[in-house]
């Protein structure tokens, strides 16, 4: 398999390059803010460049196999190796993490949240990038765990230092909750390791041998992994850290959290929990499905009760990740394809929504839905982008969100053999109802914030009655903060907007990649 091992340096370089940037930044004085930003951005761009190069090298005809595999000794005492590789499931997520980091860097150019200090902020972001990319390429459980945990610290500090008023509570809750899940996950990993003969932590090895473990034991081991991953996703009822973390996090943190970090959980299910413990997965699937549909409805209801825009978007993540998990719980290639597509789509769309929320906050200094009104009049481009994302988020066909949502619903009609069809068909109908609630809370958000006249508080009364659509009528001296989309924002957002349309119109760009990889995993379960 030499072809697949060729160029196996690209993954390591793509993963650890950000750390080199961090190293450089360490030696640049804190005061050189522009230089710090430049170095960080260049590092992120270079990383993305390596990612794009990976894309060109990737053998798309063999997307179902691990490519660029590298394996060397690491911690031989516990038989853990540095073992990496990438396939059709990991690749889109790996690239997504790089793209998001670059865009967030661009956005940070003129949006460093208070209390400033771009040096530390950007360094944390680069470390975060290494953690995210590493998680998606790990082929060894210990390596996976290290990367998985590496992600926590930078995010913890991002929320805790650059967050909103209640940042202490939110960051601690985020950290402890995910740590709690990780602890159980690690227990499960170790149990799996010992039960398979303490031979290796390599994922392919465990996938091959995990199925031989007695079913009862599998169920218990799966429980540990389930909690670890479910907290990260987050699934109902382990989601309560998410709204707080999102609401308090700085915009950049929210974007990364929504776009990439949540996917670590769902990715864990697909890559680790389900193929390694197929019998347990069969046992657990109906319950995972149940929690997913509860999450869909519950998240939507949570959204309807919100008065804060950012918190609403956070709750919508609970609902959307419910669709992803529903797809996974069917254990069919149809459902998992939908799930992986849904992960990428949710990353693009919700990431974009958090960007918009951040920019609204920056302009209006509030995210109270009731106080915002007539944004289409004051900041037309921003409001149009919000409308676009709202439509994408509620699953409009032709935009990316649809391909995660509809196939997931579809797959629930016919779950894997051995799972109760009746149960999953009920889930299907409930999930379909969730799409209506999604339309309700998203349109309601859009209608109240974008339509109507701007409120007097934000200079609405002074605006021209024959207000025009161009962006020249909001240079109100008293509200100089309220301006339309800036050039940095355009640069940071356009790739996401293009991605949402592109994957919506040409879903096969992704499906073609995911399908063989998912098929390889489903064969593990189906035997």
């Amino acid at each position, binding site marked *: 398999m030499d072809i697949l091992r060729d160029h196996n340096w690209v993954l390591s370089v793509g993963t650890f390059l950000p750390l080199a940037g961090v190293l450089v930044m360490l030696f640049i004085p804190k005061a050189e803010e522009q230089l710090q930003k430049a170095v960080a951005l260049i590092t992120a761009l270079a990383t993305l460049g390596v990612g794009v190069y990976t894309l060109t090298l990737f053998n798309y005809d063999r997307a179902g196999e691990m490519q660029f595999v590298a394996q060397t000794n690491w911690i031989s005492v516990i038989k853990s190796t540095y073992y990496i590789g990438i396939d059709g499931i990991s690749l889109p997520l790996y690239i997504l993490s790089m793209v998001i980091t670059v865009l967030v860097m661009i956005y940070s150019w003129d949006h460093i949240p208070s209390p400033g200090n771009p040096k530390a902020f950007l360094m944390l972001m680069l470390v975060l990038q290494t953690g995210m990319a590493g998680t998606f390429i790990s082929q060894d459980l210990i390596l996976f765990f290290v990367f998985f945990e590496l992600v926590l610290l930078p995010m913890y500090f991002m929320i*805790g230092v650059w967050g909103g008023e209640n940042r202490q509570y939110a960051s601690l809750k985020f950290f402890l909750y995910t740590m709690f899940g990780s602890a159980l996950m*690690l227990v499960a990993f170790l149990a799996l390791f010992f039960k398979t003969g303490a031979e290796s932590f390599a994922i392919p090895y465990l996938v091959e041998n995990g199925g031989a473990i007695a079913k009862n034991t599998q169920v218990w081991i799966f429980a540990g992994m389930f909690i670890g991953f479910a907290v990260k996703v987050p699934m109902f009822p382990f989601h309560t*850290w998410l709204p707080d973390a999102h609401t308090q996090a700085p915009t950049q943190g929210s974007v990364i959290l929504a776009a990439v970090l949540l996917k670590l959980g769902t990715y864990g299910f697909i890559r680790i929990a389900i193929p390694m413990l197929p019998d347990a997965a069969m046992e657990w699937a109906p319950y995972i499905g149940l929690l997913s549909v509860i999450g869909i409805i519950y998240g939507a209801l949570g959204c309807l009760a919100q008065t804060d825009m950012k918190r609403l978007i956070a709750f919508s993540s609970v609902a959307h990740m419910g669709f992803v998990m529903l797809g996974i719980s069917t254990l*069919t290639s149809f459902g998992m394809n939908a799930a992986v597509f849904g992960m990428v789509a949710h990353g693009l769309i919700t990431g974009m929504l958090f960007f918009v929320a951040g920019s609204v906050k920056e302009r209006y200094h509030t995210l109270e839905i009731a106080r915002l009104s007539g944004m289409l009049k004051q900041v037309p481009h921003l409001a149009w982008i919000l409308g676009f994302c709202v439509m994408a988020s509620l699953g409009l066909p032709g935009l990316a969100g649809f391909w995660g949502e*509809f196939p997931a619903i579809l797959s629930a009609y016919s779950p894997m053999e051995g799972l109760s069809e009746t149960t999953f068909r009920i889930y299907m109908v409930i999930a379909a109802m969730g*799409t209506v609630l999604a339309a309700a809370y998203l349109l309601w958000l859009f209608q109240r914030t974008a339509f109507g006249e701007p409120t007097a508080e934000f200079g609405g009364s002074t605006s021209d009655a024959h207000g025009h659509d161009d962006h020249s009528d909001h240079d109100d001296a008293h509200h100089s903060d309220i301006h339309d989309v800036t050039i940095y924002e355009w640069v940071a957002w356009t790739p996401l907007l293009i991605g949402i349309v592109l994957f919506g119109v040409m879903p096969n760009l992704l499906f073609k990649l995911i399908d063989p990889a998912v098929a390889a995993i489903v064969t593990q379960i189906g035997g």
Partner: protein
Amino acid sequence: MFAEASTVADKALSSGWFLEHAFIIPIIPAVAFALIIFFGKKLPMKGSELGILSMLASLVFSVGAALQWISRVNGAAKEQYVEPVIRSWTWWDSGGFEFGIGQHIDGLSLTILVVVAFISSLVQIYSLEYLRGDRRYTHFFASLTLFSAGMLNMVVAENMIQLILGWEIMGLCSFMLIGHWWEEGANSRAALKAFFTTRTGDIGLLVGTSVLFFSANSWTQENLGVSGFSIRGLSAWALTGDPSHAAITVGAVALFIACIGKSGQFPLHTWLPDAMAGPTPVSSLLHSSTMVVAGVFLVGRLYPVFFEGMNILGSGVNLITVIGGITIVVAAALAFVQTDIKKVLAYSTVSQLGYMMMGLGAGAWLPAVFHIFTHAFFKACLFLAAGSISHSASHHSFEMKKDMGGLRKFMPITFTTWVISTLALCGVFPFAGFFSKDEIIDNVGHNGYTVFMVVGLVGAFMTAAYMTRATYLTFFGEPRGASAGESHDDHGDAHATHDPHDAHDSHDAHASHGPHESNLLITVPLMILATLALSAGLFNATPFGKSWERMAKWVEPSSVVVEDMARASVGETRGAPSAIAAEESAHKDSVCGTSTPATGICYAPQLQHAPFKWAKGAMSVFIVLMGMLISWLISVQMYTKKSGFFVGLTSRNKVLALGYRFLVNKYYLDHLYEKVIVHGIAHPIAKAAYWVNQNILDGIVNSAGLVTRRVAGWVYRNVDQRVVDGAVNGSGAVARGTGNVLRPVQSGKVSQYGALLFAAAAVAGLVLIIVNT
């Protein structure tokens, strides 16, 4: 990828460039939309020229394809199955299957394509004048163009996913267009309501598509080489007797729920009248050929599925006819109590859609499709005429009672076109509506749905009556309100900055500020549409004999059994059922739809056509004329002579008062939906869920944290300090670990915690192993 799975293999059937490339038709306006959005404002006509050009181009392509289709049909043998022109390219694949996007072109799709492109072109031309100077002129044309693109895409759709794409794009555009003047709360609420109500019905679309896909996929893959989303595959599958009855019934009912939402059928019709908040050209387009027709089209498109799922010819009643029948009467009754001219028309649309649905439900496929065709012309004309009145006479008001009356003298062209369209709508011979509506009523009775035939006749009577009332209020009597030159508050139409009208000018038809005829950009579309309202019925004029039934020949799919090569020679030509030639033995009464053909495939059920009888036609025309006459007499008494008996009748008679209140409140359906259901979910239920979230779920998390901290503190004080002073054993490490978990900020011992966690996890892992071995 299907290498362009075009199935036009038989040499006996002609084809042509336009037919083969019909998939371009929706692409043209879609591209135009993007161009208008990005460059529209910089263009001399602010993007409207792109919209109009794209619609005209679509029209040319549609007509070209239609002509080629006609020659294809004419060239076919007498009993030959005229294969639709299907092309497909891979769009996405999942689970080892490939799913396509492409075109499915047959008589039905071409009929709707031509109508949509034609009406859209006229409406856009009309909008040039109607929305002149509007604050969002460019956006308006962009949305309108995308709206048409959505409909066109839905009509050419090769499979259900593509159909859903068009379906939802229309939903989006209706949201943008109804809420076009979103500064006002009422408009934005109406937009939300339209999108949300249709979206509620779309649960059925998603569920129904899923059910049908999984039920049909293995059959279609095996026999036709297409997916279970394919329209051709689903149609063929439905008629094989293969589907289990439960699956196809559930699928059909679920899809029909979506049609109820989209096509404004009872009880989800409530969004349609509110959708009048949008500019009038939007109403015209939305009500005549796009959006609301989508639901009817879906039933017609997947007719075999509904035919089998609802057992259409097997019983005297089914869900579609019941919903259609109720809608006809319920909506017509509401039209009587409206004072807004556009709302009268809106309810009349709802009622007419009820006819189409009822026809489809009762096996009158062709009359229903024909009614879509004729209705598009006269309903578009009526809406545009209403727009013309508000634009040039009533100062942007649509209130018949307050601001109209006597307008026939000032607006002769608008008046004439309105009257022609009204007669067509009512179904007076020889206007277009007569041929289609009468055919529906006739065939519904013929197929054994006697009760629904009566419903149809009652509906015809009511239609005639409420349209006469509206006509009287608008064009007869004395001018009132704005039409009489009284100035009053601007109604919020975008471009309303006319000077206050001078009361003395009001009778001068040529005064610039009084009521006057609209200019050519408005009247020419009106005249074209009125001409068609007059003549479109001749396209399928059953009364005049077989040679006039062109629609039956060109549009109705033939229900012959098609020899299926894939079945005959297994594996040889899988994926391309190339035989198009009909079975030699195929007789006029095909078995399709009634029993399973032994060999071969049916694509359409065998339907019957009621023979036309002049006596029946005369009877329905008589009913219509009676409706008009009675309504006219009452209107004269009530509105002009102010007869003491009629005026205030509803406040004197208690029963009538109750009925009137019931109607004015729209059967309290809006109350039910908005005050009870939506309010209930949005407020108590959502709030309760959120309360649970904050107080119970989060409470558990927080108190778990608190308890652990207390325990850790206690352990530290009592165990660590007193008992095990100095000795750090396993349990102490764990306890301190927990303590540190809770204070990483203060103590900064996160890294230390990590090590401890790792150790604790290892211990716990070992415990698990020991327990389990």
